[in-house]
C-alpha cells in the first residue's frame, strides 16, 4: 500500500485505494464523493506537517490540485477535472506572485502537457465520448476551450518541455523536494498497479500508452544508434542518465531494467559491462517494492542469469576486482580488457547473493505449498546453488575466505534440512536441468542484437554435488569454521547439528551442541538464529527418539512445549494466544520470519514424540511417587494434559495425537502394555518415519519395560515375593531383560527387594519408617536444599567460584523439569537450555572454551608424529 494513503491513518482511507479502482468505473457519483472526501481528508490529515514558508505552502496546494486532476483523469471525470483546473490556475497566480517568478513553475507546465495529451486522446476516442454522461461531456467541451486559450499563453514553455522533459524534471527535482517525494509515492502506486493488473480500467490503459510511448522513444534512441558511433563515453553518459532516473517518478522499474539490459549489450569494455550489470541487478531488486512482497519469478531468474554473467566476466578477466569499500575513479571502467593493472569496479557480490536467496525464500513463502507451482519453484533451487557455488569458488580463488564463508553458509542453509533422499532427488534434478538449459541458451543467443563484449560461459551453470549430503555439509562447514565470523559459525554449527540429527547421528550432534556452548548464549543472538536453534533442538529430539534415547529426546523437546507456542518457536505458523494480543506490527514481523513449507518439521510427529517420551518417563515416575504427589514432576505439560483428560466424565475414542497418548497413558498406568501400544500404533504420524517398523518395535519394547516398572512400583507392596518367570510372561519380555530391569531398580533403591537366586524370585522387603523417622528424613532433605541454595546464591554473587560445588550438583541431576519450568520470557525464554543445560553439566563437558574448533581436533589429528 502506498505511503500516500497510509498516511491518512483512518480506516476508510486505508481501504480507499482498492475500492476506488473497483467502484469508480461503474459509478461516477460515488466517485465524486470519494474524491471530494479525499481532498478534504488530505487537508485534515496532513496535520503532522510542520510550518513551512508560504512559498512551499502554496506549492503544496498546487501539487494537491494537480494530484486530484490526475486522479480525475484516471477515471475520466471531466467535471472534477474542470474544477481542479480552475483551482490550479488560481493558485498559479498566487505562486507567481510569491516567488516573483517570470516563468510559471515547471509543475504547472507539466500538468498542462498532460492535460493536453489526455484531452486529445479523449476527443479522438469517439466511442467513449458517446458513452459519457451529459454533464461529463459538457465539462469536456468546456475544458477543451479553456485549455486552448490557456495554453496559448504558455506555448513556448510547453514546447520546450516536450522537447526535453528530463531536464525540466531535474530542475524541478532540485526545487521541490517535498513534492517529489509525494509524487514518487503516487508513482509507486501506479507502477504497481500496472505490474499486478493491467486492465484496471480503460482510462488507465490509455494513460499508460502515453507513458509507454515515451519510454519506447527512449529505447528507440538507444537502439537506433548506429553501432559504429557507439563509444565508451556515449555509453557511459547514457548509463549515467538512466541511473539518474532510477527511483524517480516517471520511470517504471521494468523499463529501467530493460534499458540497462540493452546497455549491457552495447557496453564497450568488460569493466563497463560489469558495472552496468551490477546496476541491472540492483534495478531488478528494486522491481519489488516493500518488504513483504516478493520479486516476480521471471525477474528472479533473470537476476540469477545476470549474476552468472558477472561471474563469467570476472573469471575471464581476472584483472577486474569487485570491491565496495573504495570509491572507484570515474573512468576506471574505460580501461580495456587487456589493461595491465587491476580494474576496480564497485559492487558487492555477497550482498547480491544474499538478496537473491532471501527473495527466493519469499517467493516460496508466498505460494500455496500444495500447488504444482510450489514444486516448480523448488526446482529452481539448483540454479541458485550453482550460482552460490560459483561465487564461492571465485572468492576462494581470490583469497577472500571471509566472503566465501558467507556464501558457503547460504549453501549450507539450503541443504541442511534435506534428508539424503531429497538431496539425491535434487542432484538428479540438477543433472536434468543441465540439458534443458542448453536448449534454452540456444534460443536466447538468436536474439536480435549481439553484444559487443561476448563473454563465453566460463563458469558452469549447474551445481556439482558430492554423493551424499553429509559429504557436502562437511566440506562447506569446515570451510566456515575456518573462516567465518561469529554469527556465520554459529549458524553453520546449528545447521551441522541439524543435519547430523537428521542422519540419526545423535551422538555426534549432541557433542557438537554441547561443545559449541550455543545454548548458553543463544538468547543473545538474532531471532532468525534463535529459530534455527529451536528447529535444531526439535530435530535433535526427534533424532534421539528415533535411536531410542527417550530421556534425551524428552529433555530436548520439553522446553519447546513448555508454553503452547511451538508453532511460533519453530516459525511454522502463528499461534493465537488468548492472553496476549499482538499488534499488527508484531504479526507482520512474525509472518516475515516464517519458514517455507518444505522446510517444516512435522508438528504432529513432534508432538507425538514429545508426548510419548513424557509418558514413558512420567508414568513410572508417578507410580513410584504416588504417595507424595507432585513432588517430582518430569513433564509439567504432560501432567496438565493428563489432568484435563482425567477430569472428563466420558472418554471419547481418541482423535488427535494428544487423545491417543492420553488413552495409551491410561492403559499404561494399569500395566496394560498391549492396549497402550495398539493405541499408539494407530497413530497416523508414524508413516512420516523412514524406518518405521524398527522404531515402533523400539516403542513397544520401551512400553513393556515401563509397564513392568510401573507394575512393580504400584503393586510391590501387595507381594511378599514374585517369580521372575511370571513377570517375564506377564509383560512378554525375556527373563534376562526382566532381571536387568529389576536389578537396576534394586541398585537405585527404587525398589526395596532382592533376588532369591535358587528359586528365581524377587523377595520384597518391608520398609516402613515411623512418623518420627520420616519427619527426620524430611528435615534433613530440607537442610540440604537450604545448603544448596546458599551455595548457589554465593556462586551467583562471586561468579561461580567453587569448582566442587558444580561437581556436586552434577550428582543430583534430578529434575529437568524443575529447571525448565522456567519463566515464560519472550523469544529468548524458550531457548535458555534449562533442561538440556543441566544435562550439559552432567555431560562433563563444562568449562571447555572452544567452539567449532573442537571439530577440527579430530580432523587434524596426528599432525605431529
Amino acid at each position, binding site marked *: 500500500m502506498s505511503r500516500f494513503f497510509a498516511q491518512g491513518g483512518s480506516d476508510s482511507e486505508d481501504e480507499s485505494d482498492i475500492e476506488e479502482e473497483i467502484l469508480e468505473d461503474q459509478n461516477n457519483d460515488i466517485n465524486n464523493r470519494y474524491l471530494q472526501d479525499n481532498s478534504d481528508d488530505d487537508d485534515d490529515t496532513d496535520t503532522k506537517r510542520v510550518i513551512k514558508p508560504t512559498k512551499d505552502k502554496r506549492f503544496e496546494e498546487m501539487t494537491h490540485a494537480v494530484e486530484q486532476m490526475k486522479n480525475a483523469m484516471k477515471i475520466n471525470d471531466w467535471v472534477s477535472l474542470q474544477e481542479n483546473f480552475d483551482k490550479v490556475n488560481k493558485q498559479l497566480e498566487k505562486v507567481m506572485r510569491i516567488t516573483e517568478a517570470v516563468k510559471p513553475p515547471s509543475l504547472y507546465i507539466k500538468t498542462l502537457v498532460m492535460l493536453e495529451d489526455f484531452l486529445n486522446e479523449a476527443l479522438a476516442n469517439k466511442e467513449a465520448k458517446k458513452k459519457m454522461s451529459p454533464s461529463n461531456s459538457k465539462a469536456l467541451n468546456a475544458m477543451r476551450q479553456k485549455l486552448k486559450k490557456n495554453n496559448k499563453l504558455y506555448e513556448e514553455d510547453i514546447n520546450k518541455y516536450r522537447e526535453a522533459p528530463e531536464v525540466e524534471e531535474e530542475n524541478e527535482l532540485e526545487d521541490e523536494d517535498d513534492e517529489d517525494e509525494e509524487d514518487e509515492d503516487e508513482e509507486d502506486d501506479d507502477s504497481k498497479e500496472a505490474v499486478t493488473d493491467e486492465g484496471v480500467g480503460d482510462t488507465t490503459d490509455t494513460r499508460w500508452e502515453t507513458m509507454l510511448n515515451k519510454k519506447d522513444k527512449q529505447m528507440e534512441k538507444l537502439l537506433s544508434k548506429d553501432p559504429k558511433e557507439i563509444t565508451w563515453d556515449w555509453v557511459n553518459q547514457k548509463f549515467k542518465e538512466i541511473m539518474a532516473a532510477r527511483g524517480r517518478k516517471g520511470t517504471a522499474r521494468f523499463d529501467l531494467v530493460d534499458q540497462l539490459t540493452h546497455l549491457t549489450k552495447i557496453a564497450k569494455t568488460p569493466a563497463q559491462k560489469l558495472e552496468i550489470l551490477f546496476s541491472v541487478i540492483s534495478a531488478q531488486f528494486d522491481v519489488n517494492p516493500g518488504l513483504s512482497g516478493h520479486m516476480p519469478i521471471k525477474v528472479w531468474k533473470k537476476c540469477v542469469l545476470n549474476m552468472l554473467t558477472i561471474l563469467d566476466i570476472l573469471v575471464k578477466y581476472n584483472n577486474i576486482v569487485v570491491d565496495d569499500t573504495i570509491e572507484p575513479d570515474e573512468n576506471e571502467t574505460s580501461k580495456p580488457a587487456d589493461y595491465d593493472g587491476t580494474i576496480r569496479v564497485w559492487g558487492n557480490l555477497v550482498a547480491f547473493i544474499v538478496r537473491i536467496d532471501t527473495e527466493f525464500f519469499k517467493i516460496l513463502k508466498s505460494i500455496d505449498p500444495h500447488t504444482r507451482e510450489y514444486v516448480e519453484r523448488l526446482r529452481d533451487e539448483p540454479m541458485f546453488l550453482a550460482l552460490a557455488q560459483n561465487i564461492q569458488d571465485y572468492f576462494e580463488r581470490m583469497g577472500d575466505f571471509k566472503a566465501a564463508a558467507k556464501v558457503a553458509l547460504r549453501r549450507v542453509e539450503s541443504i541442511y534440512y534435506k534428508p539424503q533422499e531429497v538431496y539425491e532427488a535434487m542432484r538428479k534434478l540438477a543433472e536434468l536441468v543441465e540439458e534443458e538449459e542448453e536448449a534454452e541458451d540456444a534460443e536466447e543467443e538468436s536474439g536480435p542484437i549481439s553484444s559487443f563484449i561476448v563473454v563465453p560461459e566460463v563458469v558452469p551453470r549447474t551445481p556439482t554435488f558430492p554423493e551424499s549430503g553429509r559429504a557436502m555439509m562437511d566440506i562447506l562447514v569446515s570451510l566456515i569454521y575456518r573462516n567465518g565470523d561469529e554469527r556465520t559459525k554459529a549458524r553453520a554449527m546449528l545447521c551441522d547439528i541439524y543435519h547430523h540429527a537428521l542422519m540419526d547421528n545423535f551422538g555426534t550432534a549432541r557433542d557438537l551442541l554441547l561443545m559449541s556452548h550455543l545454548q548458553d548464549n543463544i538468547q543473545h543472538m538474532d531471532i532468525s538464529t534463535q529459530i534455527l536453534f529451536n528447529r535444531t533442538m526439535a530435530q535433535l529430539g526427534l533424532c534421539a527418539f528415533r535411536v531410542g534415547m527417550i530421556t534425551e529426546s524428552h529433555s530436548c523437546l520439553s522446553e519447546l512445549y513448555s508454553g503452547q507456542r511451538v508453532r511460533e518457536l519453530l516459525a511454522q505458523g502463528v499461534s493465537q494466544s488468548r492472553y496476549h494480543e499482538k499488534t499488527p506490527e508484531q504479526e507482520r514481523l512474525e509472518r516475515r520470519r516464517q519458514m517455507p513449507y518444505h522446510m517444516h518439521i512435522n508438528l504432529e510427529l513432534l508432538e507425538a514424540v514429545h508426548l510419548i517420551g513424557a509418558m514413558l518417563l512420567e508414568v513410572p515416575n508417578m507410580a513410584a511417587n504416588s504417595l507424595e504427589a507432585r513432588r517430582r514432576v518430569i513433564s509439567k505439560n504432560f501432567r496438565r494434559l493428563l489432568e484435563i483428560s482425567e477430569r472428563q466424565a466420558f472418554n471419547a475414542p481418541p482423535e488427535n495425537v494428544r487423545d491417543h497418548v492420553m488413552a495409551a497413558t491410561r492403559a499404561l498406568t494399569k500395566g496394560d502394555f498391549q492396549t497402550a501400544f495398539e493405541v499408539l500404533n494407530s497413530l497416523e504420524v508414524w508413516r512420516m518415519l523412514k524406518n518405521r517398523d524398527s522404531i515402533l518395535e523400539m516403542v513397544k519394547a520401551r512400553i513393556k519395560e515401563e509397564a513392568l516398572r510401573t507394575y512393580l512400583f504400584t503393586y510391590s507392596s501387595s507381594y511378599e515375593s514374585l517369580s521372575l518367570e511370571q513377570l517375564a510372561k506377564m509383560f512378554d519380555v525375556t527373563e534376562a531383560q526382566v532381571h536387568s530391569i529389576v536389578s537396576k531398580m534394586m541398585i537405585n533403591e527404587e525398589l526395596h527387594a*532382592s533376588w532369591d537366586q535358587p528359586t528365581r524370585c524377587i523377595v520384597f522387603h518391608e520398609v516402613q519408617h515411623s512418623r518420627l523417622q520420616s519427619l*527426620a528424613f524430611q528435615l534433613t532433605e530440607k537442610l540440604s536444599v537450604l545448603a544448596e541454595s546458599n551455595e548457589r546464591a*554465593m556462586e551467583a554473587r562471586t561468579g561461580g567460584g*567453587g569448582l566442587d560445588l558444580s561437581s556436586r550438583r552434577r550428582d543430583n541431576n534430578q529434575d529437568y523439569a524443575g529447571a525448565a519450568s522456567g519463566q515464560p520470557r519472550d523469544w529468548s525464554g524458550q531457548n535458555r537450555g534449562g533442561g538440556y543445560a543441566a544435562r550439559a553439566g552432567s555431560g*562433563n563437558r563444562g568449562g571447555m572454551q572452544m567452539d567449532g574448533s573442537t571439530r577440527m581436533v579430530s580432523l587434524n589429528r596426528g599432525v605431529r608424529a
Partner: protein
Amino acid sequence: MAETKENYDLTPRVAPNLDRHLVFPILEFLQERQLYPDEQILKFKIELLNKTNMVDYAMDIHKSLYHTEDAPQDMVERRAEVVARLKSLEEAAAPLVTFLLNPAAVQELRADKQYNLQMLKERYQIGPDQIEALYQYAKFQFECGNYSGAADYLYQYRTLCSNLERSLSALWGKLASEILMQNWDIAFEELNRVKDIIDSKSFASPLNQVQNRIWLMHWGLYIFFNHDNGRTQIIDLFNQDKYLNAIQTSAPHLLRYLATAFIVNKRKRPQLKEFIKVIQQEHYSYKDPIVEFLACVFVNYDFDGAQKKMKECEEVIVNDPFLGKRVENGNFSTVPLRDEFLENARLFIFETYCRIHQRIDMGVLAEKLNLNYEEAERWIVNLIRTSKLDAKIDSEAGTVIMEPTQPNVHEQLINHTKALSGRTYKLVTQLLEHTQGQAAR
C-alpha cells in the same frame, strides 16, 4: 578370531599421537605377538626409520626384509649425509659440550639463569649460538637413537635456555628419551613437568592445548603401565575434567586404559561412578570389551554378558602393547596385569551380584566366577572372614545367604547431614575470602 584381534588393536589410533621413536616398542611388541605378517611390520618400520637418522638400523631391516646383502643406494647416501651432519653439529656444539664435560666448570653454574649466561659468555665465550647448537645436537642424537646422550644434553640445555617454546620442546624430547631408556621414575617427573607447563601456558588456541594434552596422555601410557604407582596416577591424570574432555573429544580409545586402571585399582572406587557415566555417553563413539565389561556390570546388570566380556578382555589385554607386558618367570612368561585384571573383574561382578541377591546357589556362583565349587567356597569364606562380605554359607542347601542389608535409619540420617557442616564451613571461608578480596580492592 584373528580378525577380532586386529579390531581391538589400537596401534593405528595411538601411533599418530606418538613420536616416531616411541612407535618402535609397539611395533616390536606386535612383531612378537605376530598379529600381523612380519613383512608388513618390517615395511612399516622402514617407513618410520626413513624420517629418522637411524640409517644403520633401517639397512639391517631392509636386508632381513628382502633377504639381500646390499642396501639400496639412497640409504647409503643418506647415511653419509647423516654422518656429515653429525660431524658439523658436533663441531658447533663442541665448546659447550667440553665445558659441560668438565665437572669443575659445571660446579660454577648457579640457579640464576641470567648469571649463568653472563658467566658463560665472559669466561668461555659461549653465546646463544652455541646453546642453540647444543639443542640441535641433542635433537640429532635423539634422531640417531642415542637417547641417553640426548637426554643429558637436553637437561643441560634446559638449564641454559631462555626461550619458553624451545624449553618445552626440549622437555618433550627429554621425556621421550627417558621413556625409551625406560627410566620410569625420571620419566614420570618429566611428565609432570610437561603437564604443568601445558596447563599453565596460554596456547594460541584451545585446540592446541587439547592436542598437547592428548599427546601427553599417549606418551604417558608407557610410564603408567610400567611405573609401580602408575595405575593410580593414570586415573589422577586422565580423570581430571580437562583431560577427560580431551579424551572424549579427540581420543576416545584412551578410555580403554582408563577403564583398565579403574578395574585394577581398588582405591579409586568413588570416582568409578562418574566414569561409568562417561562411558555411557561415549558408547556410540568407542567400543571395547573392557569398556563394555564395565557397562555390563554397572549399567545393564547383565552378569552373563559380563562373563563373556571378561574372556574377550583377556584377549585384548594380552595383545595390547601397553597392557600386555610380560614378565619372564623361569620358564613361564606371565602377563601380570591380566591376572590382576581378572581377579578384580571377578570381584566386581560378585560384589554387584551380592548386592541385589538374598540367596545365591554356590554352584551358580562358582560358575559365574570361573572357579570350581571348592575354590568358590574357599574364596567366599575368605571374603567373609576378612569381613568384606556380610553373609553366611548354608552348606546343607549349598547356598550363600546375605545378611539383610537394612540400612539403619540413624545411620542414614547421619549420612545425609554429615556433609552439610563441611559444605557450610567451606561456604563461609569462601565468603570471607571474597569479602576480603573486595575490601583489599
